[in-house]
């Protein structure tokens, strides 16, 4: 069974870059660009990992993360969060909300790949 990742990102170019990287790693990548219905999308997609942007139209990534952690079925879902704002306040907030990994844009490709691999490995162990 292939590993599946859901990428919530509204910048099409960034989404395309990440899709390219993960597809080559053997991931099946789904993308979604809207924050408003992201939680439902994540819950119904039954994926192994979520990559979540913070600044999203409709609903911010922080709020989405908090809702995910409040739901039973997504409580332990690995979430990798990306932000372009890069202030330490955001990192604190995300960690309080229960993020699995927090990364600042611009990222290096290898960082993303490593983070995804680590998260997937952790999730499979438990």
């Amino acid at each position, binding site marked *: 069974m292939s590993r599946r990742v859901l990428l919530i990102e*509204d*910048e099409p170019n960034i989404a395309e*870059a990440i899709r*390219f*990287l993960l597809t080559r790693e053997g991931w099946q990548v789904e993308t979604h660009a809207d924050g408003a219905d992201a939680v439902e999308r994540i819950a119904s997609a039954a994926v192994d990992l979520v990559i979540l942007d913070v600044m999203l139209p409709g609903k911010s990534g922080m709020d989405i993360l908090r809702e995910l952690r409040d739901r039973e079925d997504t409580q332990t879902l690995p979430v990798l969060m990306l932000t*372009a*704002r890069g202030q330490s306040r955001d990192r604190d907030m995300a960690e309080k909300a229960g993020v699995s990994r927090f990364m600042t*844009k*611009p990222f*290096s490709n290898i960082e993303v790949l490593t983070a995804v691999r680590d998260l997937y490995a952790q999730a499979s162990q438990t």
Partner: protein
Amino acid sequence: MTSLNVLVAVCLCYVVLLFGVAFAADRWASTSRSTWLRSPLVYTLSLSIYCTAWTFYGAVGYAARSGLEFVTIYLGPTLVMIGWWWGLRKLVRVGRSQRVTSVADLISSRYGKSNTLAVCVTILAVIGVTPYISLQLQSITLSFNIFAEADPGESYVEQSSAFWVAAGLAVFAILFGTRNLDTNERHHGVVIAIAIEAVVKLIALLAVGIFVVWGIAGGAVDTLARIDASAIGQWQVNHGRWATITFLAAAAFLCLPRMFQVMVVENDDERHLRTAAWAFPLYLFLMSLFVVPIAVVGLEILPEGSNPDLFVLTIPLGQGQEMLAMLSFLGGFSSATSMVIVAAMALSTMVSNHIVMPIWLSAKGGGASVSGDVRSVVMYARRVSIAVVLGLGYFYYRMSGGGAALASIGLIAFAGIAQILPAMVGGLFWRGATRTGALVGLTVGFVLWLFTLLLPGMGPEVLAPSVLEQGLFGLSWLRPQALFGIEGLDPMVHSVMWSMSLNAAAFCIVSLLSFPSPLERLQGAQFVNVFEHSAGPRGWTGSVAQSEDLMIMSQRIMGAREAQEFFQAEAAAQGSRAFLPEPTPVFLERLERELAGSVGAATAHAMIGQIVGGSSVSVEDLLAVADESAQLLEYSSRLEAKSAELGRTARKLRDANEKLTQISLQKDAFLSQISHELRTPMTSIRAFSEILRDTDGLERVDITRYAAIIHDEALRLTRLLDDLLDLSVLENGQVTLNLGQGMLADILDRAASTVLTGTPKPLRIRRNSGSEQVVLQTDLDRLTQVFINLISNAQKYCDAADPTLTVSVHDVGGRVVVDLLDNGSGVPADAQKMIFEKFARVGADKAGGAGLGLAICREIMQRLGGDITYLPGQGGGAFRVSLPLGLEIAAQ
């Protein structure tokens, strides 16, 4: 002998004639302004429905039994008519200026449009008038009887004839009383028909009288001798009854629903009263003149035990004067029919307006304003009410057995109806009269009348003899005909004395103790001071230019300048160029609130309701009140103005504070924003350059594509940095303007072509090149930049299916104003304040750049001595660019 069939045929012909006349009169009234339909003579004759069959037949019987006392029934109205300057004139003026539709409406309208009162008066009227209608049915049936007895060949059933009479009258009343729903409740056809009937009954009674005096008694002198020799040959009246009945008749003349209908509601011209003041007493005089002679001669020549109530018929019949008897019969028939028709119409108006409609409307749940079928419901209610009223009359007639019990009912009904008098007179002359007072007075009077007169008069089946003798609950002071132990009075005098005095006393005392609502006070002033508030006799004006009336009224209350500004602003908000706005619900609601600030909510509501509803208070009346209020409010409005100014200042401060808070929040977010805006393109650039560097075996197409992405994002970064620099330069005032002269049309051309070339998303731009021929002295490149920004904004954000941008140019006070209006959904109200701030983007749309465009535009326009603003409420996104014709950058 006249056969019954002939009689019926004559009756039918007569009714058909009346139908024809009434129909023609309605036609005339609607097509031409024929004056004779509205002449004082017709008005006077229509008043004659006061003389019912009770008068026509009953007066002779009354005289035969009680001598001259019968004349009091006519003396009361005579005094009211010749004293018209005291009260009647006011009643008619109020009725006309308040658009009153019935006596119940008058009372209700005076006491703050209280429907409870209207219902009370309506019930009282129905109870009082129903037996009276039975009396008319009885008289017609009895007169048929007389002919039937003389014509034994025919089989004749009294009950069924009463039924057919009632049904026929109902049909006539329905046909002519409810053919159209006139807001004025006037019926020319019916009025003309009853005027003709008035003539017929007068001629009939005079003919019988003349025949009796000169045909039988042998001249006037001989008649007087016979009178002196008869059983009623001496002056003998009960003093109390003489005075009481005169008073009662006067009161009933004013309060009877049918009299109110012809006297006030059907009145065309107040000046008709001047003629009726002497002509109607003359009519009554002539109707009474031969009553005693007929009674005396009847007693003399007819066999012992004949019914004196029918002497008017039996004397001519006994003398073989069949034509005269027929005429006399038609006279009685006319008296009965005209009374029944008008009474049924008046009652049906009251029942439908005050009982049926309120119930229907509340059942519909406030649907009156939306559904157009209210009128048909009203008509239906009227028709059914007429049928029900006549049905009640008929059943009362059946129940009472049509016997002598009915004969006394006329006066009893008078006493009942007269209970309205205190509330009516008090309402017209005393501003302190209140709704509660009227309600209590009416109730007290009604209950006393019921207990002391109506119930005892209905016989032992209704009120047990023990109550009559020992009093209610065995309390001797509660004996119906000897209240509080006052014995020996005539029951009629006793009842009227107690009911009227306690009614009036309760009305006055409760009025003094209670406090009226604002609407009551307004109406009270309208009624009592009607001559100050209404200018001369007026026709029933049709619809008026409502906005203008509202404007005039508002000026008096709000002050001329404020009112004009308010109206103009409203008109502008409605998108009209005219000075006066349309009276839309929204505008009225706002105006009402505006007025409520000055005169209170209830009054404002009433005032607007009355102008727009156009129902009861005339505009002139309102103006009068507005003048009064203006004086009262002068002082307080000065205080209010001051506090309003404080309020405005506070509001401005609050606005400023709110904006500062928001801006500081934005400043706070500025770094974070810059970071985000720079990092986002950077991320793509970095990711794809790493992909290009680290990935082997990429397709040629992919390589090109990724390089293109990197290139695009690099451009985006550059643009962002340019904008930031531009803005910072503009904000710091370090910009140097490159002044030149150019045509506005050229600038717009350039901006439009820059935006539209090579874009896939279409945008139609509508322009009026004529108005764009304006020469500007300004920095042409900067101005072009502003228009480019605005046009490309419209292209990006306009969400209409067929996006269109309309550019219009005006000259306002020496400045050029360019409005750019698109047909999309515009900027939401909460975002309008912020769109000119840096990084402000409406919604989370990524369509644009960093959200600096409008901020730059505003900076540029301020440098150029102009301004750019958002125009709310234009039905789409709308920006206004204004700039001076020459350059006034002066000292910056």
